Every structure is written in structure tokens, then in C-alpha cells.
């Protein structure tokens, strides 16, 4: 890269990481108020574990994310498989299912809140979970459908000719082909659910908070340094996962190249 280009990329990265760096540095700050540096401390990390409202919102976020991703993956994968099997474009049901992904989040949130309230469901964990499943399904379909459209249906027929039941030939032949797409869809849903604020904001209640809402409520009284500590930990974990995944992928790549050379 030329020098000027390098500088520009550096500037963009600096812009993206400046607030994150500030946040991380202040998670080690002995002073409680921002803007004042009073020396290095790990106190906030210790207090984080003792802070019940942050920890319970963390559990809520993780459990809701996991369950929502699971249900959305089942419904979305089945739908993608069904659409591919029908060999039609199914553009009508697809455009309806993609609505939560394309529409403004605030409208999705508000409309679901109206639905739950009219049906007398008390806003809380369950309603938040239903909403998360709703906006996760399109991402699963998006991830699985291309794989499902590439499926070779003659293999499925061949397996049945050789004596497999339809169920068995699905699990033996089709499912392994779909699996990468299903995993991508699951992870995509998990990220979407964990990061969501707007839809959760309208569809939860009764003191059930996910992390985003906890942060939003907390910010009215001033962000606690514990939450900086928590996000520093989360950032480190994600960075580690990405590095491990990429090193693994690079190794596989090298092995492939080597075997080709041989």
C-alpha cells in the first residue's frame, strides 16, 4: 500500500477504535468519574462479579440469545429447505419473512409490543424471546437458502432407492450439506440477539433487562466503570475467538497448499 493509503486506513481505524480505547483505559481507572485519571486498578473487575444487576442482565442476554438463535435456526432452516425443495421462487413468503430485517427496528418493536399487550401477555423475558426469534429468522434463511438451493436432489432419491427412509436420507445426505449454512445462521442470530437494543426496549418489562437496556438505564445515572470492565472482557474474548478461528483457517489453507505442491 502507498503511504497516503496507509495513513487513510489508519485514520479510519483510529476513528473506529478511539472510543473503544477510551472505554478500555477507563476500566482500569481508580477514579469513579470519567475524565480524571487516578491510577491503575483491577477493582472494577472484582466489583463486576459482585454487581447483581449487571450479572443478571448478562445471563438474560446470553440465555435469550442462545434460545432465540436455536428456535430461529430450526424454523429458518426448515423453511429454507422447504423453499429449495419446492423449487419455486417462493418470493411472497420470502419477502414477508424478510420484513423484520428490512423494516425500521423501532416499527418492529412497537408492533410486537402492541401485539403482546393486546393479547394480555405480560412484557418480560418470554415476550422478548419471541421478538428476538422473529427478527433472527430472516438471517437464518439468508444464510441457509443459498446452501439449500445447491443441494443435489438426485442424491436424496438415490439414497431412498438404496433403501433409506426419507427421514434417514435427509439426515444422512442433505443435512451435512446444509450444516455450514445452519451454523452461520445460528451464529448470526446469536450476535444479532446479543447486540439488540431497540426491539428489546419495547418488548421487555417487569425488570427483565438485557445488557443493552441495563446500559441504557444505567447511563441516566452515569455509566458505572464495572460495565467498562465487562465490555473490555467481552472484547478480549471475541478478539481471541477471531484470532483462533483465523489462525486455524490459515493453517488449513497452508496444509492445502502444501498438499497441492506435493
Amino acid at each position, binding site marked *: *500500500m502507498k503511504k497516503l*493509503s496507509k495513513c*487513510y*486506513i489508519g485514520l479510519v*481505524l483510529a*476513528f*473506529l*477504535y478511539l*472510543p*473503544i480505547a*477510551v*472505554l478500555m483505559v477507563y476500566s482500569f481507572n481508580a477514579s469513579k468519574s*470519567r*475524565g480524571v485519571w487516578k491510577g491503575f486498578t483491577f477493582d472494577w473487575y472484582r466489583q463486576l462479579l459482585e454487581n447483581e444487576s449487571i450479572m443478571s442482565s448478562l445471563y438474560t442476554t446470553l440465555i435469550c440469545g442462545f434460545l432465540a438463535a436455536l428456535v430461529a435456526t430450526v424454523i*429458518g432452516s*426448515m*423453511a429454507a*429447505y*422447504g*423453499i429449495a*425443495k419446492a423449487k419455486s421462487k*417462493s418470493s411472497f*413468503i420470502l419477502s*414477508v*419473512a424478510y*420484513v*423484520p430485517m*428490512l423494516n*425500521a*427496528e*423501532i*416499527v418492529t418493536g*412497537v*408492533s*410486537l*409490543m*402492541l*401485539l403482546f399487550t393486546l393479547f394480555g401477555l405480560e412484557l418480560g423475558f418470554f415476550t422478548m424471546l*419471541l421478538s428476538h*426469534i*422473529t427478527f433472527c429468522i430472516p438471517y437464518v*434463511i439468508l444464510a441457509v437458502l443459498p446452501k439449500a438451493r445447491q443441494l443435489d436432489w438426485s442424491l436424496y432419491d438415490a439414497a431412498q432407492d438404496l433403501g433409506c427412509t*426419507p427421514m434417514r436420507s435427509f439426515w444422512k445426505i442433505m443435512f451435512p450439506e446444509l450444516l455450514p449454512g445452519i451454523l452461520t445462521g445460528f451464529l448470526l442470530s446469536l*450476535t444479532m440477539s446479543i*447486540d439488540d437494543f*431497540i426491539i428489546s426496549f*419495547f418488548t421487555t418489562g417487569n425488570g427483565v433487562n438485557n445488557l*443493552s437496556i441495563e*446500559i*441504557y438505564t444505567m447511563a441516566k445515572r452515569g*455509566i458505572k466503570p464495572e*460495565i*467498562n470492565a465487562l*465490555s473490555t472482557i*467481552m*472484547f478480549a474474548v*471475541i*478478539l481471541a475467538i*477471531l484470532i483462533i478461528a*483465523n489462525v486455524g483457517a490459515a493453517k488449513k489453507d497452508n496444509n492445502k497448499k502444501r498438499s497441492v505442491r506435493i
Partner: protein
Amino acid sequence: MKKNLCLIPLYVWSAVFIVFPLLIVLYYAFTRDASSGMSLSFESFSRLADPMYLGVILRSFKIAVIATLVCILCGYPAAYILARSNSRSKFIIVILMLLPMWMNFLLRTYSWLTLLEKSGLINSFLSLFGVDPIIFLGTEGAVVLGTVYNYLPFMIMPIYITLLKLDQSHLDAAADLGANPFQVFMKVTLPFSVPGVLSGVSMVFVPSVTTFVISQIMGSGNVTLIGDIIEKQYRVVNDWHFGSALSVVIMIIVLAFMYFINRGDVEANNGNGGRLLR
């Protein structure tokens, strides 16, 4: 009949949790509370003619358009440099650009307060050079900054992915035929990247025009957007009818916007520049 069985959960789920809730929003938007239950009314929509609300809708538009333009102007060069470079660190940089998206966006946005407040880091830094404290927060500029900060990666990535597909030989051919670098960019690269820019625009514009958190944080309550008013109708005033009418307005904006983006995409595909390369 297996295909129908597989699709049933999606049909049911979409009907109950997507279509029906939107119908409820429409129902509330076109009714009002009357002594004998609800009655058909356009009252909520006529309230929108109030200059205050029109001003808010216009301001939401203005901020979203400016933020989207800034994202294109800042994001395009970055995507271009990354796509054209052969450097080994390229993929690390791409991952670094995506990584912030995994951090809670509220926290990242609040972090700007530490930087921008009157006694914040940037003002402390400037005061070393004798510059008087600048008030950043509470202005429309700050809201634009917060929006650009949150959605810039969503603009860079689609453009980057589109430009990766651009074949070097097309650029060489254009240069061989006598085009200078500027002409090569205007006649080959730019038309080729239009679909990427359009999908970036749709990923940035819709959330920007409807945000209510970024405006609350960065605008310190001084900058009211359409999202803030909707939030207030449901959370504070409890006027579901007016809140639903505003939601309908947002849906119309989004639908119209999607229509133009799709048309632009079709045109870009049929246009000379893009077509030649495909």
C-alpha cells in the same frame, strides 16, 4: 407434500409475529378513542401537519441524508484502498473494521461523551494549545458523528466486497485504450461499484432515519428525531394512535426508499458501465 410441512412454522410465525402486528399498527393509526370504543379517524395524521412534527420529520431526513453521504465519502476510499491492495495485512484490517460491531453500540456511543464533553479529552487536549472549550454535544453535528461512527462499517463492507470482484484486466484494458487513472475510475470502477454503494446506503439510511438512542446520547436531548417522538408516544404519553401514525409514516419512508434503491440497482445492472463488465 413434505415441502408444505417444512414451511408451516415459517408461515405461522410470519402471520402471527410479522403481518398481524403490522395490521394492529395500521388499525391504531387510523382510529381514535371515542366514548363508544374506537372510531375511524384521520386525526392522528392531521396532527402530523403541525409544523413542529413536520420539522422533526425533516430534521430526521436531513441528519440521515448527511450521515449517509459522509459514510459514502469516508467509506468509499477505505473500501477502494483495501480492495485494491495486495498487502498481507489486508484481511486483518478487514476484521479490525468489523470487530467494533460486536461491541455494544450503546457503550461505544456513550464513550464519545468522554471524548467530546466540555471538560472531555478532546477539549483538554485542545486547551494545551490555548483553544477555548468547544461545545460539541447537543448539536446536530454530534448526532451525525454518532450515526456515522455506528454505521460506517456497514458502508465500507458492501463496497469492499463489490470492488473485490472487479477484475484487474478491465482496469488494464481501459488504461491501454488511453484512459488516464481518473477516467478509469469514473468509467470503470465507479459504475462497477454502484450495487455495493446502494446496498451500503440501504444499510445506513434506514437505521439512521429511525434512530432514537444516538440522538438522545449525542444530542443531549436537544435534537429530537422522529424515533424519539415515537418512543415518547409509547413509553411516556401512552398515545398509541399517534405513535402508530408516526410508525406508518416511517414504514412509508422505508418502503419508498427500498423502491428507489431497487430501481437504482436494476438501472445500474442495465447501465452501460456495469453491464459491460458482467
